[in-house]
């Protein structure tokens, strides 16, 4: 059984009089601990799909299950609490809280989303800071570190709640190539360490190469699936 099972997933946007079909029946099955990328040209529906998987939006048709739960009909509060428990997010613009330090940004979900006891909190945060190589900068504020470093912190924040799934929409679009590459490497390393499923979308062909499963989206339809290296996902 897959971690994420999508069948004939559809999404329409209403733009005034016009209905935009952003997803025209997309089906796929993602196994736990996969390292998956959705690629495609601009406007192909990557963000739309990731928003649906992330329970940030509701599909117009079809079904979507994440870890056995039907997430296509969650209301706003249920959605928030499902995301808080099960999904980590990495954003294109890092989106760290500017008033919180590196340490506090990673701590945020453990205080404000989940309620994790002090000892456990500290252990997890320090462990992740170590893993993403930001331990020395832990008391700096976001505006005192580089873009690549911010995204490392964001990776740590996404993982600190031990989610089953981390979603990243264009996580490297604002980074130069080598930094982008290192962030993707970091995400992969985290997948290996924490057995968390990572799904990211990108334009960047060189970055795409790092994914183990690559889905190609074109004009709201899945037009290809490429499995590389094999092996890692059973």
């Amino acid at each position, binding site marked *: 059984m897959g971690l994420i099972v999508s069948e004939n997933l559809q999404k329409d946007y209403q733009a005034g009089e016009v209905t935009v079909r952003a997803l025209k029946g997309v089906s796929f099955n993602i196994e736990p601990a996969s390292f998956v990328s959705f690629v495609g040209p601009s406007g192909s529906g990557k963000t739309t799909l990731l*928003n649906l998987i992330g329970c940030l939006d509701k599909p117009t048709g079809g079904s979507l299950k994440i870890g056995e739960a039907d997430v296509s009909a969650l209301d706003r509060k249920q959605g928030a609490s*499902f995301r808080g*428990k099960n999904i980590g*997010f990495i954003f294109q613009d890092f*989106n760290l809280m500017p008033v*919180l330090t590196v340490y506090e940004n990673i701590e945020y979900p453990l205080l404000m*989303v989940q309620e994790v006891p002090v000892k456990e909190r500290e252990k997890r945060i320090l462990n992740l800071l170590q893993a993403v190589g930001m331990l020395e900068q832990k008391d700096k504020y976001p505006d005192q570190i580089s873009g690549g470093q911010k995204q490392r912190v964001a990776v740590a924040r996404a993982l600190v709640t031990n989610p089953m799934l981390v979603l990243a929409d264009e996580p490297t679009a604002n980074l130069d190539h080598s930094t982008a590459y290192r962030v993707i490497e970091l995400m992969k390393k985290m997948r290996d360490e924490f057995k968390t499923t990572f799904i990211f979308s990108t334009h960047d062909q060189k970055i795409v190469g790092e994914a183990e499963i690559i889905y190609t989206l074109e004009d709201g339809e899945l037009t290809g699936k490429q499995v590389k290296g094999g092996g890692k996902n059973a």
Partner: protein
Amino acid sequence: MRNLFKIAIRNLLRYKRRTLLTASLITIGVIFVLVFISISGSFKNMMVGQITDSMLGHLQIHKRGYVASIDNLPLNLNLKPNAMKKVEGVLQTIPEIESFSPRIKFGGLFSNFTETTNIRLNGVLPEKEFKTVPLMPSRITAGKKTLQPGEILIPDLLSKGMGVKPGDTVVVVATNQDGSVNGKQFIISGVLEGVTGPGGRDGYIHLNDAVEVLRMEEVEISEVAIRLKDFGKLEKVNAEISNLLSGEVTKQGKPAFEVHTWEKLSPFYNIATMIDLMTFFIKLMLIAVVLISIMNVMIMSVYERVREIGTIAAIGTLPGKILSMFVVEGFCLGLIGIITGNIFGMAIVFILKLAKITFAFGRQEGLILIPTVNVGDLLVISAIVIAVSVIASLQPAYKASRMEPIKALRSV
């Protein structure tokens, strides 16, 4: 909870200038209200104190109908010994009463053997009278601060107008209830400074002398002035006395007594009410200032942080938490304003107190203003500011909590 406060404070510090401006606005409002309340309050207390403690007493009891014709000082509306016994009996059972003083009030003629003029007199038992209106001795500007039988305390206007001074002998002539005229010689024991308000220009003699001048067969009392231990219990005691005396009825079945608080007996009650009304409006203005400034800041904060709100909502922060984040921020802003306002306000009040500002009330000059902030006022104002801060943040905070994460994240 601690975390909510940490985030709120940091966000307030993030826009230092704006926070400073808003907090100062609230601070200024609070200072203004505190200073106004303390000054007007001290003025009001002094005024009420002057009136009640120098002649009126806190409460008065009369035979029903007396107050309506008090200007004539009617002798036929006095309390007979039986009625007086009832009143004394009732007053002695109420522990809140500090003292009471029976008075015989009448009008007569005052003569220094060359000139004659009108005088209004109170026959009192000096010990009881001085206990009931303790500022009375301080009104005696010349002569002795006591009153013995055979002596008279005269108002200063009379002293000046008639050219008499303590130690002089004068005659008081009065017509009694039956129409017979009687006179008696008195020695002036002291001159009384006048006070503003009814009864402020009366003279005083001993109760026994009044009985003698009026040729009363039995002692009849015109009014009983009452002083309470705690002025704050005025309404309670008033109700209690009225209730205890309400059983007494005349032959016609009407109540025999009437009880009045100082408020009903002095026109200065209106001024006191006016001061209260002004205080109320000043508080209303403070509420408006706090409401508008906090709401303004919080609307800006939400507007500026749409993406942050989108982010925290996306990673699973529940709407209620987001709401409380912003409400706590407004709360903290109000709190900063009220704390600094209280500190500065109290400092200013303290300085005003040290400055010993004097003012005149009626004909009394050189009254020293003693502005004090009482804890109750401080708490009420603080509570108002805090509550209004929270209310003002509610709408922006609610808006933040209802934001769609995807929309919010898309905004720049």
